[in-house]
């Protein structure tokens, strides 16, 4: 029986969303049909599909098409969101197809972001949880009504299972057989949602990803793969330093190359266009350019760090003040002082940035692995003097992103629009960055410095914590200060520190947000990438100083935080915490909440002289209800691996303002032989689902640093980690 219990949980969900300050449009919106408003009308003689809302379409061929409003960049949205629809619809998983939504924030906005369409902040499942289930339940109810009418029976007597409706008297029909009749019914306003006890697809670890087959046979389509009649590929020469401008250009050596079609000055550099990439790149490489670097940024990473150290000696904007940290530090029995330094990081997505733009009707069409439809529409429209709605977007798969494709200033999609404009607005353009462009053109995880002073009383109990954070403001770079900066504090710079879960009575966190012309933006798990490293390293050091076991020490300080405790306990148990390890090996732990999910990791390392390997990582996660447990596991494995790259090898450095790295030979990332064995354990939960794309990333660096401290006694406070 369907019941109303779910409505209670719905209210709870809405309250949670509101409490999180989630956005303007929290109500579940299902208006509109799923058909692309910008597509050609379907043939009048075609059998009408059932399209009760903007998210589901049931064809007379028995297909169930789920329209997904979020980008599939690897995190599993094209599987997770359809699971929610299919569950309430009682569809067969193999009849479900997936289609990316067009750009239309009125129908496809992120419910946590107000009137904005986009993907990020590990919100895809969490903001769609109610909306997509309601979309499926609505379609189901209409199919049931259509069957009840056709069979002259009471709707309550009809069963739906695996894409079939049936009645005890023997009538049966597929979704496809009922789609046309159902399409003629009034769309119900109120629908019942299932009791979670009835879930068959949600929580089913054997559901396979919807995007797997085409990513295994090479047919999946990415922006890089787009070809169109008359398309020209553009490769751009960008300035060698941030803030440099074009001084003079001699295009002749490039023009001489057969096949180079156009050489265009654009605000971000010089674009060379040809019918194919290789010709355009050869042209770009042959350009003779002089740059005006008189206003360019010329500092190096070490100089920036030194300036940050000086700033860290002065008080910053106050993020948190609880009790009297200074007094408590002055009277503490033992004070531990430490400084943490984390470098700039490139996202280094597998698919170098690219974007296709072509003329269409009164505007343009953008074809892109689009993470931020609303920003791209605004950026492209502004370049071309169009209205945002005249910028249509085809959202393709993205060859990962980690935040980069959701650029706050729509940097690369706007660059594509500039080239399109300069080329005369008639020619389809594919902008394709090289790996070197992708590494050097900015928009990094900012360099950060943390200074922490923490005090223990005579009984070994932490009594004071002062954390001063220095780094560029992502909110300011994104033009989002009104939403994210309060009293001079960018929430994205202090998240994971200012909300410290550990029960320390005197807490003070302050922040300096220096401005630099180095473009920065969110990088998988944003502020947590650095705060978790500092916090979880210091807590571990305090445990050691207090002579306590690191897990017991944390558990005691996490009274009142049962979800932190839950994952910590589970990870420790599964890892065999406390068990003996041979000489040269060490075990370290870290626990952190981000994006409303809780992750604990235990890392085991082996040290050989000054080198070390990470052998095994045990992960426990509490993300509320796990919609697709296998996708959750995959995000834990991969999110940890992404963070492990930053812990072990990745760093982007500036020297005299120039980026020193250019490609994977010097901007190092994790490789197979550095990937530990991983085990993932999901805490059973009846809570509403929360994010999984990011929360595993920030936890691994402190877990490994703590393991190295256990193995060697060395506390490493710079990333990437290097033993002395």
């Amino acid at each position: 029986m369907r019941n109303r219990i779910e409505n209670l949980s719905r209210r709870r969900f809405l309250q949670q969303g509101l409490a999180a300050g989630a956005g303007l449009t929290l109500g579940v919106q299902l208006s509109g049909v799923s058909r692309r408003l910008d597509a050609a009308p379907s043939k009048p003689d075609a059998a009408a599909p059932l399209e009760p809302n903007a998210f589901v379409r049931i064809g007379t061929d028995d297909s169930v098409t789920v329209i997904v409003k979020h980008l599939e960049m690897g995190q599993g949205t094209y599987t997770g969101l359809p699971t929610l629809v299919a569950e309430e619809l009682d569809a067969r998983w193999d009849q479900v197809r997936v289609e990316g939504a067009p750009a239309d924030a009125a129908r496809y906005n992120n419910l946590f972001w107000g009137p904005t369409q986009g993907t990020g902040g590990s919100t895809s499942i969490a903001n769609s949880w109610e909306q997509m289930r309601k979309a499926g339940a609505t379609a189901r109810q209409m199919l049931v009504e259509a069957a009840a009418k056709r069979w002259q029976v009471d709707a309550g007597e009809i069963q739906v299972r695996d894409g079939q409706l049936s009645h005890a008297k023997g009538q049966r029909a597929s979704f496809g057989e009922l789609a046309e009749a159902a399409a003629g019914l009034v769309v119900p306003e109120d629908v019942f949602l299932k009791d979670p006890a009835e879930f068959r697809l949600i929580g089913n670890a054997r559901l396979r990803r919807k995007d797997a087959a085409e990513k295994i046979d090479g047919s999946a389509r990415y922006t890089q793969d787009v070809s169109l009649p008359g398309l020209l590929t553009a490769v751009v020469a960008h300035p060698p330093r941030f803030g440099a401008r074009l001084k003079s250009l001699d295009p002749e050596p490039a023009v001489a190359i057969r096949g180079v079609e156009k050489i265009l000055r654009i605000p971000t550099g010089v674009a060379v266009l040809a019918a194919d990439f290789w010709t355009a790149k050869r042209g770009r490489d042959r350009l003779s350019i002089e740059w005006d670097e008189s206003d360019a940024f010329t500092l190096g990473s070490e100089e920036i760090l030194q300036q940050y150290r000086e700033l860290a000696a002065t008080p910053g904007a106050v993020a948190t003040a609880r009790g009297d940290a200074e007094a408590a530090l002055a009277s503490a029995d033992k004070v531990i002082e430490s400084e943490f330094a984390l470098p700039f990081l490139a996202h280094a997505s597998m698919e170098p940035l690219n974007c296709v733009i072509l003329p269409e009707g009164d505007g343009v069409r953008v074809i892109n692995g689009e993470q931020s439809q609303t920003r791209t529409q605004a950026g492209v429209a502004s370049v071309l003097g169009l209205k945002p709605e005249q910028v249509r977007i085809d959202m393709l798969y993205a060859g990962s992103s980690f935040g980069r494709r959701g650029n706050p200033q729509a940097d690369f999609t706007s660059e594509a629009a500039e080239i399109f404009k300069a080329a005369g607005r008639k020619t389809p353009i594919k902008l394709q960055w090289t790996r070197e462009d992708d590494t050097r053109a900015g928009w990094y995880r900012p360099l950060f410095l943390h200074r922490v002073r923490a005090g223990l009383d005579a009984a070994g109990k932490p009594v004071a914590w002062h954390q001063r954070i220095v780094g560029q403001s992502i909110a300011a770079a994104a033009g989002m200060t009104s939403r994210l900066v309060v009293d001079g504090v960018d929430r994205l710079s202090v998240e994971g520190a200012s909300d410290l879960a550990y029960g320390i009575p005197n807490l003070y966190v302050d922040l300096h947000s220096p401005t630099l012309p180095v473009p920065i933006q969110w990088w998988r798990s944003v502020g947590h990438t650095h705060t978790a490293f500092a916090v979880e390293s210091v807590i571990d050091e305090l445990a050691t100083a207090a002579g306590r076991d690191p897990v017991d020490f944390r558990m005691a300080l996490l009274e009142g935080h049962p979800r932190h405790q839950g994952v910590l306990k589970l990870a420790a148990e599964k890892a065999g915490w406390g068990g003996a390890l041979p000489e040269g090996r060490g075990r370290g732990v870290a626990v952190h909440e981000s994006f409303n999910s809780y992750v604990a990791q235990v890392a085991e390392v082996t040290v050989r002289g000054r080198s070390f390997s990470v052998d095994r990582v045990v992960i426990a996660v509490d993300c509320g209800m796990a919609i697709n447990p296998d996708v959750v596991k995959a995000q834990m494995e991969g999110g940890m691996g992404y963070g492990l790259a930053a812990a072990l090898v990745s760093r982007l450095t500036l020297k005299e303002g120039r980026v020193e790295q250019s490609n994977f030979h010097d901007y190092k990332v994790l490789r197979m032989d550095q990937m530990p064995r991983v085990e993932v354990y999901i805490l059973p939960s009846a809570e509403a689902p929360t994010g999984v794309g990011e929360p595993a990333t920030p936890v691994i660096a402190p877990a490994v640093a703590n393991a190295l401290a256990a193995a060697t006694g060395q506390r490493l406070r710079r990333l990437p980690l290097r033993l002395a």
Partner: protein
Amino acid sequence: MVKITVNGREHQLDLDPDTPLLWVIREHVGLTGTKYGCGISECGVCTLFLNGAPVRSCSTPLSAAANGTVLTIEGLDTPEGRAIQAAWADLDVVQCGFCQSGQIMSATALLTQNPSPTDAEIDAAMSGNICRCATYARIRSAIKQAAAALA
């Protein structure tokens, strides 16, 4: 004119012989399953078979493939390749998917040479293929599963 055979079909190409095989396959032959990721043989997403051996097509000039035979992900139908793809599907290895053609070609080459690789041999053979989604643990498991299926 340079002649190459790609997935069993012959192509006559009037291109600069220095053009990397990757761009020949992607933009002139029209098969886009093989990807561009770095251009300097560092990431492996461009891996395909030339005359039966895996190569980084981004750094292999067309001239080196003249009169040769190319196999890409689209034409992969050896027993090892099919077993690898089946294991990839069973374990849901992929995330963003962009590197996976290259991973599958490298894994197929490994199993073709060594039907039962150890973890260390898998790591050695696959460490030239970067996956930023870090699907490495599943790749390792899938290679072992495919090896077991072929045994």
